[in-house]
């Protein structure tokens, strides 16, 4: 399917498209930063706060254990959150914009 250059220009400049890009960039960047901060924070706490991680919250259960496993689950939940946002909100706006582009 071909879209004329002027049409492309029109869509790119439109407010709806710009807000779509803005929202998508925001979500992607924030989630990326969250993941980076959490993981780097984890690594740094192992390097500098090792003893805190070794504190037991139950007999033979240092807090580092649930934190480590929790990190794995957290990483997966983050991808789940993004998928849900993208499937519900983002895709809806994409569909609207696509229809506008391809109809004319």
């Amino acid at each position: 399917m071909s879209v004329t250059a002027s049409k492309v220009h029109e869509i790119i400049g439109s407010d709806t498209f710009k807000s779509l890009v803005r929202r998508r960039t925001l979500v992607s960047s924030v989630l990326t930063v969250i993941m980076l901060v959490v993981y780097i924070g984890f690594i740094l706490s192992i390097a500098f706060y090792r003893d805190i991680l070794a504190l037991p919250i139950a007999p033979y259960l240092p807090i580092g254990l649930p934190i480590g496993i929790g990190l794995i689950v957290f990483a997966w939940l983050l991808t789940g959150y993004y998928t849900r946002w993208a499937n519900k909100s983002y895709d809806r706006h994409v569909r609207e914009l696509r229809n506008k582009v391809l109809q004319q």
Partner: protein
Amino acid sequence: METYSTTLGQVNTASIIIFFVFVAITLMITYWAAKRTKTTSEFYAADRSISGFQNGLALAGDYMSAASFLGIAGMVALKGYDGLIYSIGFLVGWPLVMFLVAEPLRNLGKFTFADVVAFRLRQRPVRIASSAGSLMTVVFYLIAQMVGAGSLITSLFGLPYEVAVVLVGCVMIAYVLFGGMLATTWVQIIKAVLLLGGATLLVIMTLSHFSMNPLVLFEQAAIKYSDAVLSPGGFVTNPWDALSLGIALMLGTAGLPHILMRFFTVPDARQARRSVFLATGFIGYFYILTFIIGFGAMVLVGREVVSSLDKGGNMAALLLAESVGGQFFLGFIAAVAFATILAVVAGLTLSGASTLSHDLYVNVVKRGKADERGEVRVAKASTLLLGVLAIVLGLTFKGQNVAFMVGLAFAIAASANFPALLMSIVWSGFTTRGAVASIVTGASLAVILIILSPTVWVDILKNREAIFALKNPALLSMPAAFLAGIIVSLRKKEPEAAMKFEEVKLRTYLGIGAE
């Protein structure tokens, strides 16, 4: 100290039978796939017929190598919690793939990630540079896998190393040559199911010795070997080292050619998204399993026995399988490990072959004008070439300590492939020269620095002190690649490329024009 009796090293009939059944079934699948692998779209991308769920399994399969299964279980068995820290590093790259790369890649590219990098730029220089980065990653990863395969089969069956390498090489060539992406995808899916299923079974059987409660297992481990095994040990002593490795693993995942290639097998960006979500779940679950398996081996088999059979602890999972399930279960898990090796090297070979044919032959040699059948023929020839090369390399590096090559492959992926990929997706000012500069800087720095690092300079070349202090170069090579790309792009603008960025945006965000 009583001797531990194990049948490891003796011929295990169960294992051989299960393995041959796996090979037979997958070769039948290859035959079925061969009839559907005639066009380029079919050879490289299974004609985009793979669903999000199937691709999620295939991605997980590609990522869960025998090295990670046996290696991480072994690391946990010998060092406890440290193995978990290592696994987490491998997992957290996947969210980044989801947020930054998966959908734009699917929308912008056709068969390889170089399609995306070279989208608006001048084809030949960018294709050559991307191919170099891609091939370097694939080759180093392949060497590590082939050598690992050979030594694993040797230590498990007593088969000569050379026979093992040639056997693995020939079967994997068959998968890719005749069945292309369709066959390799299904091999990955089957292997992923076997691996996840087998590991789950192993965990259940292990936990049955501990009242089905992992906490009891941990308690036993702490009683046997001290509380220290439940907390971080010596793995993260130097924060810079840990950060560098973490960066290599996180960003490298988003730059591995054989992983990125899988995103082109699904129909659209939405399915690509779904496949990453599922893959992340499967892989995360897998690492939790290997954690329990490692502790199981620590308690039920013992660290001394594990390390006496292999210094790195690679036999831990197998010894545990034997301990809780006898020879038959040992055979099953061993067969699954071989299947894993086969699947991963097949995926790597396909990705390398596609770089040679789609990126280099079609877009550089033929300047974008090659007919369908010609390209498929070249792709198949490249497969053969790369397969033979993999066998030769596996034989050449026999007995060498090649574990560092996986770290190097990730470092190159994080430095040469990822920065260029990301910048070409998000920045209109990214130029041809910038792309080339970024890739060349990332790749060269990664290789040079790792040669000068303790991993090679001291451990392998036996010098006294390393010139470059970090074990993994990514902390330096990755930012350097970004900087190089930015500085070179800003110094001389490329208006033609900047103008095409509007089309990029349309395609990236709305999927219009995606192939």
